[in-house]
């Protein structure tokens, strides 16, 4: 009897084990001992550091946020394409030029796809690039200062979406247009879209030492939508792949009219071939207008230069450089595996995932197995380039990342899940729900030859009930999964800022060692820097008044200023004399029509104040800098426009 009971229990135990394996969709609701085990996996003890950095796009915030993994803690919001009153970015005189474009000053942007610079196909952690979708731009952020140091506008582009992905040695950061437009822009009927609009794919060279960007060439492609892209790597280094949709070339009600073709294309671009063509004088210089904004870390000042022409290349002028790979149903993500062999087209309206083979593609090209052409670009036969398909993995595939162990992870927007499948056998290994409707996912180093694995996180479009409610508007949710085992394990649910599109993540060790603590005051070469109290002064030039001001714990110098008149344009040039880590000073004056300034040690920032009222107005340090922060204040006297109060200033004594 006892034995019978025992064996029954054993069988029951086995059944439970099997069902829990198969029914992985339920594993989100673990509790008790298992839940505490999961908590340990994301617990980073006070004072300890996370193992990974995650750089998550802020979407319509225009910025880039910095997170730690596995804790999901946010460390910084880096202002990129949007004004940021917290630091004065886009408000200070030094950083206003960063947001200059051929359309004038633009205070906002829609940031999408960050990508970290690479050397030999491996992430090197020097720079991170991110695209602005709305007014096409690419930004470079320096990962020693975590500040935006360069922004280049992309002419002839519209909806800069298939961007900003870097090639294996950061030779190029690539920016493709989502919307095709008249090139060059002109006044013409919208209905004449078909055959007249074009899609520009821009290859922006990156100078190796400082990362300075310059548009090497733009490939003027047929008027499709270029949705996402990724570089070839390893064997396919030298190629770039772009998904297209709207090969129907519809210009109205695209949700129907651009969903008619059974297959759209992945455009395969041999950029090395075009580079050679261009280096030999190929392509034509087209008049254009686009801003190139560069921030200089020594002058702490950005300059904006308007460029006047861009080199464009017609694909039919470079035979053998561009091919179309038919890919089912309006593919969205275009992802290349770490070996460079597989190109995954995530056909968002398709039931299956399509995977193309780079080797087969080369073979088909060599044997000229073409299936017609589009605007002079050869179309390869679907069957000839297909490596395989993942059958019925889920609904609405969007993006795929890789773990370096031969596995791929694809997000499914409609069925709201991440599916793990095997490259080569195309079998589904695991699936886990996301909360809810996942867009991109990121594996540290997942877009390189050497993914760093361990974690994957899914960035969702819908939050609903995941957190305490905050009214109708919610931050988006993200989920972190442990991917070190066969099955994915949900570890953590954390909110993100704005709308996170893509994210780039990498091991923290390389970046954290290089992170700067202060700016060198000795090297500060700002035109209006006052490097000691002796350099402080107030200079009037007509109705412009320049105040060379210093800050150090815990006073401004000068802190009494008289002789300002209504109608003056007063420039506060504030230098932080500190050379100590994490001792910023802030500056704000009553009635300031811009933002505060937050000035890092060794830095100079300038704020313009145009006083409209007579009075004695206080200014103060906005950052609780020291025990005597509350004493860190000063007064500026504003007299009537016709007064003759002399321009005088002091610190530590009265103005006579």
């Amino acid at each position, binding site marked *: 009897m006892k034995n019978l009971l025992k064996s029954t229990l054993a069988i029951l135990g086995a059944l439970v084990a099997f069902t829990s394996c198969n029914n992985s969709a339920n594993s989100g609701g673990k509790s008790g001992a298992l839940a505490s085990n999961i908590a340990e996996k994301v617990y980073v003890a006070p004072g300890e550091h996370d193992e990974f950095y995650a750089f998550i796009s802020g979407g319509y915030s225009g910025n880039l946020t910095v997170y730690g993994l596995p804790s999901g803690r946010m460390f910084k919001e880096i202002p990129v394409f949007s004004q940021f009153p917290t630091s004065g970015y886009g408000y200070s005189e030094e950083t206003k030029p960063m947001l200059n474009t051929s359309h004038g000053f633009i205070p906002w942007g829609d940031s999408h796809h960050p990508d970290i610079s690479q050397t030999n196909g491996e992430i090197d952690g020097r720079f991170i690039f991110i695209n602005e979708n709305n007014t096409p731009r690419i930004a470079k952020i320096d990962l020693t200062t975590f500040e935006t140091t360069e922004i280049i506008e992309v002419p002839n582009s519209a909806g800069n979406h298939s961007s900003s992905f870097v090639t294996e040695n950061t030779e190029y950061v690539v920016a493709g247009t989502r919307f095709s437009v008249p090139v060059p822009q002109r006044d013409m009927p919208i209905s004449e879209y078909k055959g007249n609009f074009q899609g520009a794919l821009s290859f922006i060279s990156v100078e190796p030492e400082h990362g300075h960007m310059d548009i090497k060439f733009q490939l003027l492609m047929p008027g499709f939508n270029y949705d996402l892209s990724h570089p070839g790597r390893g064997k396919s280094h030298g190629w770039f792949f772009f998904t297209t949709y709207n090969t129907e070339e519809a210009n109205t009600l695209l949700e129907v009219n651009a969903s008619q073709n059974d297959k759209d294309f992945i455009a395969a671009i041999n950029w090395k071939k075009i580079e050679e063509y261009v280096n030999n004088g190929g392509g034509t210089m087209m008049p254009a207008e686009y801003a190139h904004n560069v921030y200089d870390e020594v002058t702490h000042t950005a300059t904006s230069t308007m460029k006047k022409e861009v080199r464009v290349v017609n694909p039919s002028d470079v035979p053998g450089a561009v091919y179309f790979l038919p890919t089912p149903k309006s593919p969205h993500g275009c992802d290349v595996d770490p070996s460079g062999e597989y190109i995954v087209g995530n056909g968002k309206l398709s039931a299956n995932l399509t995977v193309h083979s780079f080797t087969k593609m080369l073979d088909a090209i060599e044997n000229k197995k073409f299936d017609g052409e589009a605007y002079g670009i050869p179309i390869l036969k679907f069957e000839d380039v297909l490596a395989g398909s993942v059958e019925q993995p889920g609904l609405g595939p969007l993006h795929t990342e890789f773990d370096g162990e031969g596995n791929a992870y694809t997000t499914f927007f409609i069925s709201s899940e991440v599916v793990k499948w095997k490259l080569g056998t195309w079998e589904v290994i695991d699936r886990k729900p996301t909360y809810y409707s996942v867009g991109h996912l990121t594996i540290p180093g997942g877009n390189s030859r050497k993914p760093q694995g361990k974690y994957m996180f899914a960035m969702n479009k819908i939050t609903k009930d995941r957190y305490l409610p905050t009214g109708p508007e919610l931050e988006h949710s993200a989920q972190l999964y442990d991917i070190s085992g066969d099955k994915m394990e949900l570890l953590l649910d954390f909110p993100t800022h704005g709308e996170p599109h893509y994210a780039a993540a990498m091991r923290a060790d390389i970046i954290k060692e290089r992170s700067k603590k*202060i700016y060198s005051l000795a090297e500060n070469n700002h035109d209006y820097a006052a490097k000691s109290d002796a350099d402080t002064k107030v200079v009037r030039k007509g109705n412009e008044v320049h105040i060379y001001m210093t800050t*150090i*714990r815990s006073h401004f110098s000068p802190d009494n200023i008289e002789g300002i008149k209504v109608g003056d344009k007063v420039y506060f040039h504030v230098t932080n004399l*500190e*050379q*100590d*880590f994490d001792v910023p000073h802030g500056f704000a004056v009553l009635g300031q029509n811009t933002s505060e300034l937050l000035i890092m040690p060794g830095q100079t920032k300038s704020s313009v104040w145009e006083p409209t009222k007579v009075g004695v107005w206080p200014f103060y340090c906005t950052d609780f800098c020291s*025990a*005597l922060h509350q004493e860190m204040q000063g007064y500026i006297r504003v007299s009537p426009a016709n007064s003759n109060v002399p321009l005088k200033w002091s610190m530590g004594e009265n103005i006579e």
Partner: protein
Amino acid sequence: MKKAGIIMIIGSLLLLGLFKFPLWNIMLGAPQYPEPLGMNIYIDGIKGVSEFDLQNIDGLNHYIGMKTIPKPNEMWEFSVFPKVILGMALLGAIIGLLGIFNKISYKFFLGWFILMSVLGVLGMYDFNNWLIDYGSNLDPHAIIKVTNPDGTPMSYKPPLLGFQKLLNFDVTSLPHTGGYLMFVGMSLTLVAFWFGRKASLKKTTQ
């Protein structure tokens, strides 16, 4: 006596390490300074452990009215100490050399040690006096004035050796590489004396 002489030379030349390495080190940690600020005391001046440590120590000290850390030309010690150390190192080496050739008695080794010890104690006494002045000769207009329970102004004198808590700062004062080299060198001269004595006794018994 040859062995003793060589040890004597090595021992006294180890003093020259003071020209390269700090004699002493004072570290100041605080809740806000998880990476402590520090000063390395060389025989010819005081340097920060990190580039801006001295500037930052001075910046903090202005709140309690301490004088700034002296520059080399502000203290006679920084010009005299190098000469004394160089002189003693050369003297020790000469004594050792003469010892090798049996020109002088091993007792000179002990003599050198005693002279060096007296100079060392004088140096420490002088250093401690400076610490007392630095820590207690405060600006009467200091922003923050802290008094002892008996009403006397608190002294911010760092410890000569060891650990002390000064307001929010944990202050640790210890010899540094140059200092340790000097101690090892001085000990070696004692060893030289001992070997010299042994050799001498052997000789007399023979």
